[in-house]
């Protein structure tokens, strides 16, 4: 019961944050809503027993990636988004469409997987076992992603560096 309540509360926060992301016109508000979504998602992970994933979600997503977003919003001083007719049309047509689609998907899922359920703490994700998987069974993908990250770092530095100025001190985290 407690599990269901917690799920519903944080699920509601998630949905609210996601919708707020869409509604808000200023990117910083959208970014903060997204942080809220990620935080409550971390709680959902905890409810699923994946505490390591939950903490990493907070550290990486909320603590690093979103900081980067906020940083860029601040740096570029991104203003309020202007509305045009097209976007109103999109809202009028798209939002009901999305709601309908979501309802349809939800209905299908409820129809076809009603029996299985997850209980609180059903499967803890101890860091040791995760490490065993990550550094043993999934070693190659792990190394590949590490190279991907390295490439991304270099790409970001090259892209963001001003070609003409010599003293570029800004870093992408």
């Amino acid at each position, binding site marked *: 019961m407690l*599990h269901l309540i917690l*799920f519903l509360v944080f*699920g509601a926060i*998630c*949905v609210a944050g*996601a*919708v707020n*992301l869409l509604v808000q016109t200023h*990117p910083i508000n959208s970014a903060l809503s997204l942080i809220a*979504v*990620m935080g409550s*998602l971390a709680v*959902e*992970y905890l409810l*699923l*027993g*994946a505490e390591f*994933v939950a903490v*990493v979600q907070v550290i*990486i*997503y909320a603590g690093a*990636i*979103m900081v*980067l*977003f906020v940083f*860029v*919003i601040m740096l570029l001083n991104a203003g309020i*988004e*202007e509305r045009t007719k097209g976007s109103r049309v*999109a809202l009028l047509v*798209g*939002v009901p469409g*999305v709601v309908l*689609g*979501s309802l349809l*998907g*939800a209905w299908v*899922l*409820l129809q*076809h*997987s*009603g029996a*299985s*359920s*997850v209980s609180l703490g*059903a*499967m803890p994700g101890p860091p040791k*076992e*995760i490490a065993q*998987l990550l550094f043993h*069974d*999934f070693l190659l993908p792990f190394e590949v*992603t590490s190279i991907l*990250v390295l490439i*991304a*770092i270099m*790409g*970001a530095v090259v*892209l963001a560096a001003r070609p003409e100025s010599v003293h570029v001190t800004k870093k*992408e985290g």
Partner: protein
Amino acid sequence: MVPLSYYLILSGILFTCGVTGFLIKRNIITIFMSIELMLNGVNLSFVAFAAQWHTLSGQIFVFFVMVVAAAEAAVGLAIIIAVFRTSETLNVDHINLLKL
């Protein structure tokens, strides 16, 4: 006891919100955040399935998604900065150099 489908529905809602945001938002940064939202929705279903099948592989995939998201954010934001530097705008409707 929470049915697995609840988690999947939540994941689906988040993903749909991300798609919607990607389609209706004009600010390139917000569009980018919508992508992150989609990835988060997918991550939730990974973790839910991992709990469902009692295997940790789902959680491992979440890590990979996170790493890719981080790499994507770094490169994407660098591109945004570069775009802003040349076109002085973040509105994707004004960035249409690919037009015929």
